[in-house]
């Protein structure tokens, strides 16, 4: 009786382990269908900021620049698509600060991330962009006034934005921009597939086709 008890406990533990690992591996394989490709890290780096459920199977990788007007215009559109497909979409932000001086805004954004206010900061940057970046006339000093609105410590941002780790993130992203041949911002990839003809409708179709493929009805 005692042997049976201990033996069955062993057996249950072993079975739980085996089933647990095969279940987990299956989930991972599904989740990272496109991530399993050899060059997946070109799209999603360890340092990349992501929004959305960790179980999402559709990855929207956006190469952007906080000072880019079209990026700001697309932000509500992406937000809307994500809200309409809860848990299915993950947004990955990559940087492509093409214009001179644009990297300063990426640095501010990354410094805000150190205070845990990444998405709020990106939001306020997009909303106030017209003030500090109208027609590529960058005036960072006009941005500072808006940052405390989301509870940021501006003095800390000024210090943190020169952190060498942020410079490395930008360097890596720019290297990937080259490798993926991103020419303009925002540059979109949905599960590794590039948006070939730019436009709201085209992006919507690309996302929908991946949603249909990953979540068959």
């Amino acid at each position, binding site marked *: 009786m*005692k*042997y049976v*008890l*201990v033996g069955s*406990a*062993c057996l249950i*533990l072993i079975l*739980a*382990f085996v089933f*647990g*690992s095969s279940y*987990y*591996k299956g989930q991972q394989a599904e989740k990272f269908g496109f991530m399993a490709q050899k060059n997946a890290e070109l799209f999603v780096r360890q340092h990349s900021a992501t929004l959305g459920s960790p179980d999402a199977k559709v990855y929207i990788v956006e190469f952007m620049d906080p000072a880019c007007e079209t990026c700001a215009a697309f932000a509500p559109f992406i937000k809307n698509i994500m809200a309409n497909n809860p848990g299915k979409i993950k947004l990955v932000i990559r940087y492509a600060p093409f214009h001179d001086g644009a990297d300063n805004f990426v640095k501010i954004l990354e410094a805000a991330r150190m205070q845990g206010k990444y998405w709020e900061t990106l939001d306020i940057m997009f909303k106030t962009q017209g003030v500090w970046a109208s027609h590529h006339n960058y005036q960072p000093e006009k941005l500072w006034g808006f940052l405390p609105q989301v509870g940021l410590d501006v003095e800390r941002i000024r210090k943190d934005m020169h952190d060498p780790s942020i410079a490395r993130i930008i360097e890596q992203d720019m290297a990937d921009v080259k490798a993926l041949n991103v020419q303009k911002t925002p540059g979109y990839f949905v599960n590794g597939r590039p948006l070939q003809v730019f436009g709201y409708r085209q992006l919507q179709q690309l996302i929908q086709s991946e949603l249909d493929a990953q979540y068959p009805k």
Partner: protein
Amino acid sequence: MSQADQAAKLNWTLLFLCWLLVSVSMTISIFFSSVLEYEPCVLCWYQRICLFPLVLILGVGLFPFDKSVVKFALPLAIVGGLTAFYHSLLYAGIIPESIQPCSKGVSCTEKYFELFGFVSIPMLSFFAFSTIIVLLLVIKRRTSK
């Protein structure tokens, strides 16, 4: 059943629970490292060194029930428990990170997993070791009468 038989049965059951707890802990620990690929930090390894032998020591003590198993198992459980306690304090930031002995490899404050948002791996370990210590002490008291 006589009173002595009943007492013996309860002792065996307590030791079995002890063994079950360390076996479950070991399985979860190996699941974390091999399947989820959470790399164990130095302090985690010290706790594993104390945990894994307990599965065998307590298991052997079950067949037939041997009260001296407590003598061999308790030191391991105490060392493991103390390490887990220290690790939990480090993880919670109560002990500053600068004096931690594990600067190479994985940081001991690396957040991998938090059950219900606050139960960390070191806390689970501490909970398991303390429960084992308590159970072993109960067995010790019951058998030394």
